[in-house]
Protein backbone atom coordinates (compact mmCIF):
# COMPACT_ATOMS: atom_id res chain seq x y z
CA UNK A 1 0.00 0.00 0.00
CA UNK A 2 2.73 2.39 0.99
CA UNK A 3 4.58 1.48 -2.16
CA UNK A 4 1.50 2.40 -4.21
CA UNK A 5 1.17 5.80 -2.50
CA UNK A 6 4.82 6.54 -3.06
CA UNK A 7 4.69 5.65 -6.72
CA UNK A 8 1.54 7.74 -7.20
CA UNK A 9 3.24 10.72 -5.56
CA UNK A 10 6.26 10.24 -7.74
CA UNK A 11 4.09 10.06 -10.85
CA UNK A 12 2.25 13.21 -9.82
CA UNK A 13 5.48 15.05 -9.21
CA UNK A 14 6.83 13.92 -12.53
CA UNK A 15 3.67 15.06 -14.32
CA UNK A 16 3.93 18.45 -12.62
CA UNK A 17 7.52 18.90 -13.72
CA UNK A 18 6.82 17.77 -17.26
CA UNK A 19 3.66 19.83 -17.86
CA UNK A 20 4.49 23.10 -16.07
CA UNK A 21 7.00 24.45 -18.59
CA UNK A 22 4.52 23.73 -21.40
CA UNK A 23 1.77 26.00 -19.97
CA UNK A 24 3.75 28.95 -18.58
CA UNK A 25 5.06 31.32 -21.23
CA UNK A 26 8.48 32.82 -21.12
CA UNK A 27 8.57 36.61 -21.46
CA UNK A 28 9.87 36.19 -24.98
CA UNK A 29 6.97 33.95 -25.93
CA UNK A 30 4.51 36.34 -24.31
CA UNK A 31 5.93 39.23 -26.31
CA UNK A 32 5.61 37.26 -29.56
CA UNK A 33 2.05 36.24 -28.70
CA UNK A 34 1.27 39.83 -27.69
CA UNK A 35 2.53 41.11 -31.01
CA UNK A 36 0.25 38.68 -32.85
CA UNK A 37 -2.66 39.92 -30.74
CA UNK A 38 -1.72 43.55 -31.42
CA UNK A 39 -1.57 43.11 -35.20
CA UNK A 40 -4.32 40.53 -35.71
CA UNK A 41 -7.51 41.99 -37.17
CA UNK A 42 -9.70 39.32 -35.62
CA UNK A 43 -7.79 39.46 -32.34
CA UNK A 44 -6.84 42.73 -30.61
CA UNK A 45 -6.48 44.80 -33.80
CA UNK A 46 -4.73 47.42 -31.63
CA UNK A 47 -2.87 48.58 -34.75
CA UNK A 48 -6.09 50.01 -36.16
CA UNK A 49 -5.85 52.89 -33.67
CA UNK A 50 -2.39 52.91 -32.02
CA UNK A 51 0.92 53.69 -33.72
CA UNK A 52 3.85 51.60 -32.53
CA UNK A 53 7.54 51.68 -33.40
CA UNK A 54 7.64 48.13 -34.71
CA UNK A 55 8.86 47.64 -38.29
CA UNK A 56 6.00 45.17 -38.89
CA UNK A 57 3.35 47.73 -38.01
CA UNK A 58 2.35 49.25 -41.33
CA UNK A 59 -0.42 51.83 -41.75
CA UNK A 60 -1.26 52.02 -38.07
CA UNK A 61 -4.19 54.28 -37.20
CA UNK A 62 -4.14 57.17 -34.75
CA UNK A 63 -7.54 57.23 -33.05
CA UNK A 64 -5.75 56.48 -29.79
CA UNK A 65 -2.41 57.61 -28.34
CA UNK A 66 0.81 56.10 -29.76
CA UNK A 67 2.55 53.31 -27.86
CA UNK A 68 5.51 55.33 -26.61
CA UNK A 69 7.14 55.67 -23.18
CA UNK A 70 4.83 53.03 -21.82
CA UNK A 71 6.88 52.34 -18.67
CA UNK A 72 6.95 56.08 -17.88
CA UNK A 73 3.26 56.54 -18.58
CA UNK A 74 2.30 53.42 -16.62
CA UNK A 75 4.88 52.89 -13.86
CA UNK A 76 2.46 50.31 -12.47
CA UNK A 77 2.00 47.74 -15.23
CA UNK A 78 -1.29 46.68 -13.68
CA UNK A 79 -2.75 50.11 -14.51
CA UNK A 80 -1.90 49.54 -18.16
CA UNK A 81 -3.54 46.13 -18.02
CA UNK A 82 -6.64 47.67 -16.46
CA UNK A 83 -6.75 50.24 -19.28
CA UNK A 84 -6.66 47.48 -21.90
CA UNK A 85 -9.23 45.43 -20.00
CA UNK A 86 -11.77 48.30 -19.81
CA UNK A 87 -10.81 51.77 -21.02
CA UNK A 88 -14.38 53.00 -20.56
CA UNK A 89 -13.87 52.99 -16.81
CA UNK A 90 -11.64 56.07 -17.07
CA UNK A 91 -13.48 57.64 -20.00
CA UNK A 92 -17.08 56.53 -20.59
CA UNK A 93 -17.16 57.82 -24.19
CA UNK A 94 -13.78 56.43 -25.23
CA UNK A 95 -13.71 54.83 -28.66
CA UNK A 96 -11.52 52.01 -27.27
CA UNK A 97 -13.39 48.71 -26.92
CA UNK A 98 -13.32 47.11 -23.45
CA UNK A 99 -11.17 44.15 -24.52
CA UNK A 100 -11.41 42.20 -21.28
CA UNK A 101 -14.81 43.24 -20.01
CA UNK A 102 -16.49 42.29 -23.29
CA UNK A 103 -14.51 39.09 -23.76
CA UNK A 104 -12.91 40.34 -26.96
CA UNK A 105 -9.56 38.95 -25.77
CA UNK A 106 -8.85 36.25 -23.20
CA UNK A 107 -7.09 37.14 -19.96
CA UNK A 108 -3.97 35.40 -21.29
CA UNK A 109 -4.07 37.40 -24.50
CA UNK A 110 -4.35 40.62 -22.49
CA UNK A 111 -1.35 39.63 -20.38
CA UNK A 112 0.59 38.93 -23.56
CA UNK A 113 -0.30 42.19 -25.33
CA UNK A 114 0.60 44.16 -22.21
CA UNK A 115 4.03 42.47 -22.21
CA UNK A 116 4.45 43.38 -25.88
CA UNK A 117 3.51 47.07 -25.64
CA UNK A 118 5.37 47.57 -22.36
CA UNK A 119 8.66 47.33 -24.25
CA UNK A 120 7.96 50.53 -26.18
Amino acid at each position, binding site marked *: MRKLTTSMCAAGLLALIVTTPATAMTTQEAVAEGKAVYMGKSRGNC*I*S*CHQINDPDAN*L*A*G*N*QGPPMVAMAQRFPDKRMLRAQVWDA*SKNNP*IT*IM*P*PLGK*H*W*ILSEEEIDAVVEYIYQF
Partner: protein
Amino acid sequence: MKIIKNITIGLSLLMSTQLVFSAQPGTTLASVNPEADRMALQQFFKKRFPDAELADYVNGIYAVDADSRTQWEDLESFPPYEFDVEEGERLFKTAFANGKGYADCFEKGGIGIRQNFPYWDKKAGTVKTLEQEINECRESNGEKPLKWGKGPIAQISAYMAWTSRDNVFDIKIPEGDEGALAAYLDGKKFFYTKRGQLNLSCANCHVQGSNVRIRADLASPSLGHTSHFPVFRSKWGELGTLHRRYKGCHKDSRSQPLGMQHETFRNLEYFQTYMSNGLVVNGPGSRK
Protein backbone atom coordinates in the same frame (compact mmCIF):
# COMPACT_ATOMS: atom_id res chain seq x y z
CA MET B 1 -40.76 71.70 12.88
CA LYS B 2 -39.03 68.55 11.82
CA ILE B 3 -41.71 67.96 9.20
CA ILE B 4 -41.17 71.39 7.67
CA LYS B 5 -37.44 70.80 7.59
CA ASN B 6 -37.89 67.46 5.87
CA ILE B 7 -40.28 68.88 3.32
CA THR B 8 -37.87 71.73 2.56
CA ILE B 9 -34.99 69.33 2.07
CA GLY B 10 -37.15 67.08 -0.09
CA LEU B 11 -38.34 69.96 -2.25
CA SER B 12 -34.89 71.41 -2.77
CA LEU B 13 -33.61 67.98 -3.70
CA LEU B 14 -36.41 67.62 -6.23
CA MET B 15 -35.70 71.05 -7.68
CA SER B 16 -31.98 70.42 -7.96
CA THR B 17 -32.49 67.14 -9.84
CA GLN B 18 -34.74 68.97 -12.30
CA LEU B 19 -32.05 71.57 -12.76
CA VAL B 20 -29.54 68.85 -13.53
CA PHE B 21 -31.90 67.28 -16.04
CA SER B 22 -32.60 70.52 -17.83
CA ALA B 23 -28.88 71.10 -18.20
CA GLN B 24 -28.49 67.81 -20.09
CA PRO B 25 -28.27 67.98 -23.89
CA GLY B 26 -31.84 67.04 -24.76
CA THR B 27 -32.17 63.36 -24.00
CA THR B 28 -35.82 63.43 -22.96
CA LEU B 29 -38.99 64.29 -24.84
CA ALA B 30 -39.43 67.34 -22.62
CA SER B 31 -35.95 68.71 -23.21
CA VAL B 32 -35.00 67.62 -26.73
CA ASN B 33 -34.57 70.50 -29.18
CA PRO B 34 -33.81 69.34 -32.75
CA GLU B 35 -32.88 72.78 -34.03
CA ALA B 36 -30.46 73.31 -31.14
CA ASP B 37 -28.97 69.88 -31.89
CA ARG B 38 -28.49 70.78 -35.55
CA MET B 39 -26.78 74.08 -34.73
CA ALA B 40 -24.60 72.37 -32.09
CA LEU B 41 -23.42 69.74 -34.58
CA GLN B 42 -22.63 72.41 -37.18
CA GLN B 43 -20.72 74.42 -34.58
CA PHE B 44 -18.81 71.33 -33.51
CA PHE B 45 -17.57 70.69 -37.03
CA LYS B 46 -16.93 74.37 -37.70
CA LYS B 47 -14.58 74.39 -34.74
CA ARG B 48 -13.01 71.05 -35.59
CA PHE B 49 -12.40 71.78 -39.28
CA PRO B 50 -12.27 75.60 -39.54
CA ASP B 51 -11.26 75.52 -43.22
CA ALA B 52 -14.13 73.35 -44.44
CA GLU B 53 -17.16 75.02 -46.02
CA LEU B 54 -20.47 74.05 -44.46
CA ALA B 55 -22.01 73.28 -47.87
CA ASP B 56 -19.15 70.90 -48.66
CA TYR B 57 -20.10 68.44 -45.89
CA VAL B 58 -22.37 66.67 -48.36
CA ASN B 59 -19.09 65.28 -49.75
CA GLY B 60 -18.24 63.44 -46.55
CA ILE B 61 -14.57 62.87 -45.79
CA TYR B 62 -13.65 64.64 -49.04
CA ALA B 63 -14.76 67.91 -47.45
CA VAL B 64 -11.98 67.67 -44.88
CA ASP B 65 -9.16 65.55 -46.33
CA ALA B 66 -7.40 66.91 -49.42
CA ASP B 67 -5.63 63.66 -50.40
CA SER B 68 -8.79 61.58 -50.40
CA ARG B 69 -10.53 64.36 -52.29
CA THR B 70 -8.08 64.22 -55.21
CA GLN B 71 -8.64 60.48 -55.59
CA TRP B 72 -12.39 60.94 -55.34
CA GLU B 73 -12.47 63.71 -57.95
CA ASP B 74 -10.65 61.40 -60.35
CA LEU B 75 -13.26 58.75 -59.64
CA GLU B 76 -16.10 61.20 -60.19
CA SER B 77 -14.83 62.23 -63.63
CA PHE B 78 -16.41 58.97 -64.85
CA PRO B 79 -19.07 58.49 -62.16
CA PRO B 80 -19.40 54.79 -61.37
CA TYR B 81 -23.13 55.24 -60.66
CA GLU B 82 -23.94 56.64 -64.12
CA PHE B 83 -25.35 53.39 -65.51
CA ASP B 84 -27.39 52.86 -62.37
CA VAL B 85 -29.05 56.24 -62.79
CA GLU B 86 -29.93 55.33 -66.39
CA GLU B 87 -31.25 51.94 -65.35
CA GLY B 88 -33.13 53.61 -62.50
CA GLU B 89 -34.80 55.98 -64.94
CA ARG B 90 -35.81 53.08 -67.17
CA LEU B 91 -37.27 51.17 -64.21
CA PHE B 92 -38.99 54.29 -62.91
CA LYS B 93 -40.67 54.91 -66.25
CA THR B 94 -41.66 51.29 -66.88
CA ALA B 95 -45.37 50.85 -66.20
CA PHE B 96 -46.68 48.18 -63.81
CA ALA B 97 -48.94 45.40 -65.10
CA ASN B 98 -51.97 47.52 -64.24
CA GLY B 99 -50.72 50.35 -66.45
CA LYS B 100 -49.83 52.69 -63.58
CA GLY B 101 -46.29 53.70 -62.59
CA TYR B 102 -44.13 55.13 -59.84
CA ALA B 103 -44.97 58.65 -60.98
CA ASP B 104 -48.57 58.08 -59.90
CA CYS B 105 -47.55 57.33 -56.30
CA PHE B 106 -45.51 60.43 -55.54
CA GLU B 107 -45.98 64.17 -55.46
CA LYS B 108 -44.79 65.99 -58.59
CA GLY B 109 -44.63 62.67 -60.37
CA GLY B 110 -41.70 61.66 -58.17
CA ILE B 111 -39.34 64.18 -59.75
CA GLY B 112 -37.25 66.47 -57.53
CA ILE B 113 -38.68 65.33 -54.20
CA ARG B 114 -35.75 63.52 -52.53
CA GLN B 115 -35.14 66.42 -50.13
CA ASN B 116 -38.44 65.73 -48.34
CA PHE B 117 -37.49 62.19 -47.30
CA PRO B 118 -37.65 60.70 -44.77
CA TYR B 119 -40.78 62.31 -43.30
CA TRP B 120 -43.05 61.74 -40.32
CA ASP B 121 -46.29 60.09 -41.42
CA LYS B 122 -48.74 61.13 -38.73
CA LYS B 123 -51.49 58.81 -39.89
CA ALA B 124 -49.27 55.74 -39.93
CA GLY B 125 -47.49 56.94 -36.79
CA THR B 126 -44.05 56.19 -38.20
CA VAL B 127 -41.16 57.61 -40.20
CA LYS B 128 -41.41 56.89 -43.93
CA THR B 129 -38.34 56.58 -46.14
CA LEU B 130 -38.16 56.93 -49.90
CA GLU B 131 -37.29 53.26 -50.40
CA GLN B 132 -40.22 52.26 -48.23
CA GLU B 133 -42.61 54.32 -50.37
CA ILE B 134 -41.14 52.86 -53.56
CA ASN B 135 -42.08 49.41 -52.33
CA GLU B 136 -45.46 50.55 -51.02
CA CYS B 137 -46.14 51.97 -54.46
CA ARG B 138 -45.37 48.59 -56.00
CA GLU B 139 -47.50 46.65 -53.57
CA SER B 140 -50.50 48.95 -53.90
CA ASN B 141 -50.31 48.31 -57.64
CA GLY B 142 -50.14 44.56 -57.30
CA GLU B 143 -46.39 44.20 -57.80
CA LYS B 144 -43.97 42.32 -55.57
CA PRO B 145 -41.79 44.45 -53.26
CA LEU B 146 -38.08 44.80 -54.08
CA LYS B 147 -35.24 43.77 -51.79
CA TRP B 148 -34.04 46.69 -49.64
CA GLY B 149 -30.28 46.76 -50.00
CA LYS B 150 -29.20 46.88 -53.61
CA GLY B 151 -30.23 46.38 -57.21
CA PRO B 152 -33.46 47.88 -58.61
CA ILE B 153 -34.55 49.66 -55.43
CA ALA B 154 -31.19 51.42 -55.16
CA GLN B 155 -31.30 52.29 -58.86
CA ILE B 156 -34.80 53.78 -58.69
CA SER B 157 -33.85 55.68 -55.54
CA ALA B 158 -30.67 56.87 -57.33
CA TYR B 159 -32.68 58.21 -60.25
CA MET B 160 -35.08 60.01 -57.92
CA ALA B 161 -32.13 61.54 -56.04
CA TRP B 162 -30.53 62.49 -59.36
CA THR B 163 -33.61 64.50 -60.35
CA SER B 164 -33.43 66.25 -56.96
CA ARG B 165 -29.78 67.25 -57.02
CA ASP B 166 -29.09 70.65 -55.46
CA ASN B 167 -32.50 70.76 -53.81
CA VAL B 168 -32.14 71.73 -50.14
CA PHE B 169 -33.03 69.14 -47.49
CA ASP B 170 -36.12 70.20 -45.61
CA ILE B 171 -36.98 67.56 -43.02
CA LYS B 172 -39.83 68.62 -40.79
CA ILE B 173 -40.66 67.64 -37.24
CA PRO B 174 -44.24 68.92 -37.02
CA GLU B 175 -44.64 71.16 -34.00
CA GLY B 176 -46.75 69.71 -31.22
CA ASP B 177 -46.54 66.21 -32.70
CA GLU B 178 -45.05 64.17 -29.90
CA GLY B 179 -44.75 61.06 -32.07
CA ALA B 180 -42.50 62.82 -34.56
CA LEU B 181 -40.33 64.22 -31.79
CA ALA B 182 -40.11 60.79 -30.15
CA ALA B 183 -38.97 59.27 -33.46
CA TYR B 184 -36.30 61.95 -33.79
CA LEU B 185 -35.20 61.36 -30.20
CA ASP B 186 -35.03 57.61 -30.75
CA GLY B 187 -32.76 58.17 -33.79
CA LYS B 188 -30.61 60.60 -31.84
CA LYS B 189 -30.22 58.14 -28.97
CA PHE B 190 -29.27 55.35 -31.36
CA PHE B 191 -26.61 57.61 -32.86
CA TYR B 192 -24.99 58.46 -29.52
CA THR B 193 -25.43 55.14 -27.68
CA LYS B 194 -22.59 52.65 -27.45
CA ARG B 195 -23.44 49.16 -28.62
CA GLY B 196 -22.06 45.79 -29.58
CA GLN B 197 -19.09 43.83 -28.34
CA LEU B 198 -16.82 46.65 -29.51
CA ASN B 199 -18.87 49.14 -27.47
CA LEU B 200 -19.02 51.72 -30.27
CA SER B 201 -21.54 54.45 -30.95
CA CYS B 202 -21.98 56.05 -34.37
CA ALA B 203 -20.68 59.25 -32.74
CA ASN B 204 -17.47 57.57 -31.56
CA CYS B 205 -16.17 57.38 -35.11
CA HIS B 206 -18.21 60.01 -36.96
CA VAL B 207 -18.13 62.85 -34.43
CA GLN B 208 -15.18 62.55 -32.04
CA GLY B 209 -13.20 60.27 -34.38
CA SER B 210 -13.97 62.03 -37.67
CA ASN B 211 -11.01 62.49 -40.01
CA VAL B 212 -8.81 60.43 -37.69
CA ARG B 213 -7.24 57.23 -38.96
CA ILE B 214 -8.64 53.78 -38.25
CA ARG B 215 -5.80 51.82 -39.77
CA ALA B 216 -5.60 53.46 -43.24
CA ASP B 217 -9.21 54.65 -43.30
CA LEU B 218 -10.54 58.04 -42.28
CA ALA B 219 -13.93 58.20 -40.59
CA SER B 220 -16.25 60.72 -42.26
CA PRO B 221 -17.90 63.59 -40.37
CA SER B 222 -21.54 62.82 -39.58
CA LEU B 223 -22.80 66.14 -40.86
CA GLY B 224 -24.24 65.61 -44.35
CA HIS B 225 -24.10 61.84 -43.97
CA THR B 226 -27.34 60.98 -45.73
CA SER B 227 -27.21 63.52 -48.55
CA HIS B 228 -25.50 61.38 -51.18
CA PHE B 229 -27.34 58.05 -50.82
CA PRO B 230 -27.80 55.65 -52.47
CA VAL B 231 -24.08 55.31 -52.92
CA PHE B 232 -21.75 53.45 -55.27
CA ARG B 233 -19.21 52.10 -52.84
CA SER B 234 -15.93 50.81 -54.27
CA LYS B 235 -15.79 48.25 -51.47
CA TRP B 236 -19.14 46.86 -52.64
CA GLY B 237 -18.36 47.34 -56.32
CA GLU B 238 -21.99 48.36 -56.77
CA LEU B 239 -24.75 50.67 -55.69
CA GLY B 240 -26.35 50.25 -52.27
CA THR B 241 -28.93 51.98 -50.09
CA LEU B 242 -28.42 53.90 -46.88
CA HIS B 243 -29.89 51.08 -44.83
CA ARG B 244 -27.46 48.61 -46.34
CA ARG B 245 -24.69 50.87 -45.02
CA TYR B 246 -26.41 51.20 -41.64
CA LYS B 247 -26.65 47.44 -41.35
CA GLY B 248 -22.97 46.98 -42.26
CA CYS B 249 -21.85 49.66 -39.83
CA HIS B 250 -24.04 48.21 -37.09
CA LYS B 251 -22.53 44.77 -37.70
CA ASP B 252 -19.01 46.24 -37.58
CA SER B 253 -19.59 47.22 -33.96
CA ARG B 254 -20.17 43.47 -33.43
CA SER B 255 -23.87 43.97 -32.73
CA GLN B 256 -26.61 41.73 -33.97
CA PRO B 257 -27.58 44.12 -36.77
CA LEU B 258 -31.14 45.32 -37.23
CA GLY B 259 -32.90 44.60 -40.52
CA MET B 260 -33.00 47.23 -43.26
CA GLN B 261 -35.97 49.59 -42.89
CA HIS B 262 -36.34 48.59 -39.24
CA GLU B 263 -38.13 51.33 -37.32
CA THR B 264 -34.96 52.26 -35.43
CA PHE B 265 -32.95 52.61 -38.65
CA ARG B 266 -35.72 54.79 -40.10
CA ASN B 267 -35.62 56.93 -36.96
CA LEU B 268 -31.85 57.16 -37.30
CA GLU B 269 -32.28 58.31 -40.89
CA TYR B 270 -34.84 60.87 -39.71
CA PHE B 271 -32.39 62.23 -37.12
CA GLN B 272 -29.40 62.23 -39.46
CA THR B 273 -31.24 63.84 -42.35
CA TYR B 274 -32.69 66.48 -40.05
CA MET B 275 -29.10 67.26 -39.05
CA SER B 276 -28.43 67.83 -42.77
CA ASN B 277 -31.25 70.34 -43.20
CA GLY B 278 -29.96 73.29 -45.20
CA LEU B 279 -27.53 71.11 -47.16
CA VAL B 280 -28.32 69.91 -50.67
CA VAL B 281 -29.20 66.53 -52.13
CA ASN B 282 -26.20 65.22 -54.07
CA GLY B 283 -27.11 61.58 -54.46
CA PRO B 284 -26.23 59.21 -55.84
CA GLY B 285 -22.63 59.49 -54.67
CA SER B 286 -19.45 57.51 -54.96
CA ARG B 287 -17.37 56.52 -51.99
CA LYS B 288 -14.34 54.40 -51.25
